[in-house]
């Protein structure tokens, strides 16, 4: 017992502080990844059964709706293209480096960490799909998190609401920068760290990634400020943020490649 306990402790230390064991985990995951597929199979089967058994009228209706949406978004895209070109021109005038376009690859959620204290999810793309540690993950609505562990056919995503995760952000309205972290007590919301009472932030402000730290590209929506509390007894204001990404509901996510 003592020997095994010692071995476990050394392994935990090596795993948390150094990266000697990532190879061990990588190869052991060949054996356990099929279990995740199996655990996810009821959902994926019901998904495919659902999409195969839709009625004709429903499909026609959906098609119509999607076409309308496409038209609307193409119209908005036209304006965006113009704005983008103008932005690049202005940036060139200012001698700033131009913004790089990111490539995205779609992935699907296949599991969730059973530990109720963390916010980690598993996606079905791994090292064979060139996923790398630190890669940003978004959904259709905003930033979801980043890759923290890569296995051959799956990877773990640390969500932005995890207490261990912090995101460098910028307020869209005025460009003020701050850091948004997950909290221990809710796991659904973010808080802004060390916000002085004079900091210009109001309820409804949209927060986007600032690009600081080089991990997340700038400009992706992170959240909306839902509550600002100025307590005279506290050195800092408490700013609560609701994430824009549907962290609990999104099944299709996007991996950003530089």
């Amino acid at each position, binding site marked *: *017992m003592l020997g*095994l*306990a010692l*071995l*476990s*402790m*050394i*392994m*935990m230390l*090596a*795993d*948390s502080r150094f990266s000697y*064991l990532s190879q*061990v*985990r990588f190869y*052991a*995951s060949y*054996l*356990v990844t099929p*279990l*995740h597929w*199996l*655990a*996810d199979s009821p*959902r994926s089967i019901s998904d495919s059964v659902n999409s195969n058994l839709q009625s004709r009228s429903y499909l026609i209706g959906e098609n119509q709706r999607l076409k309308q949406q496409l038209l609307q978004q193409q119209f908005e895209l036209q304006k965006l293209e113009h704005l983008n070109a103008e932005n690049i021109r202005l940036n060139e005038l200012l001698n700033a480096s131009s913004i790089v376009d990111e490539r995205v690859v779609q992935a699907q959620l296949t*599991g*969730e*960490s*059973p*530990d*109720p*204290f*963390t916010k*980690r999810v*598993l996606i079905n793309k791994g090292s064979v799909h060139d996923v790398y540690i630190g890669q940003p993950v978004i959904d259709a609505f905003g930033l979801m998190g980043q890759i923290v*562990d890569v296995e051959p056919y799956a990877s*773990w995503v640390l969500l932005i609401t995890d*207490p*261990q995760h912090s995101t460098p952000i910028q307020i869209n309205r005025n460009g003020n920068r701050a850091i948004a972290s997950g909290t*221990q*007590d809710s796991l659904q919301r973010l808080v802004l760290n060390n916000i002085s009472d004079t900091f210009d932030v109001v309820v409804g402000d949209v927060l986007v990634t600032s690009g600081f730290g080089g991990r997340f590209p700038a400009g992706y929506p992170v959240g909306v400020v839902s509550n600002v509390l100025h307590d005279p007894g506290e050195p800092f204001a408490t700013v609560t943020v609701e994430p824009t990404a549907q962290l*609990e509901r999104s099944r299709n996510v996007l991996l950003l490649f530089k």
Partner: protein
Amino acid sequence: MGPKFNKHHGGWIILGTLVLAALFTVLPLPDWLEAYRPEWVALVVIYWVVALPDRIGLFSAWITGFFMDVLEGSLLGLNALALALVAYLALSLYQRMRMFTAIQQSSTILILVGIHQLLSFWVLTANSQNTAPNLIFMISALSSAIIWPFVFLALRYIRRTFNVA
């Protein structure tokens, strides 16, 4: 299948029950139910330790825990340590466990799984992965104790049907 080597059999059945327990552990659950999920793997390990103490012991429990760590993406060695400790305690208790009534067994499970949870929680806190000052993590010890009689009956049925020894 020679009579000489017939002492142990049904190893695949033991492995199968452990894999099934691991599957139950990662089966997606709604968020509010997550904390109530019983520690399936710990229950199955305890059952086999009590039923076949000469066969399933510390080392098997440790290896099981190691693969659980990979499966859950948790700190490598966390589940291994917790499960080895549970197996160690179960090994010292197995003679009494066999005599216990269902209620007594369930109370023992409550304590064993409670120790399992407490140890995991301590390690996570020491590693600063969480410091949530509440006892949510103990709920799964309670649900494990409640579900134990059914797990016990099912596994005993499996053991007798397939003659695992």
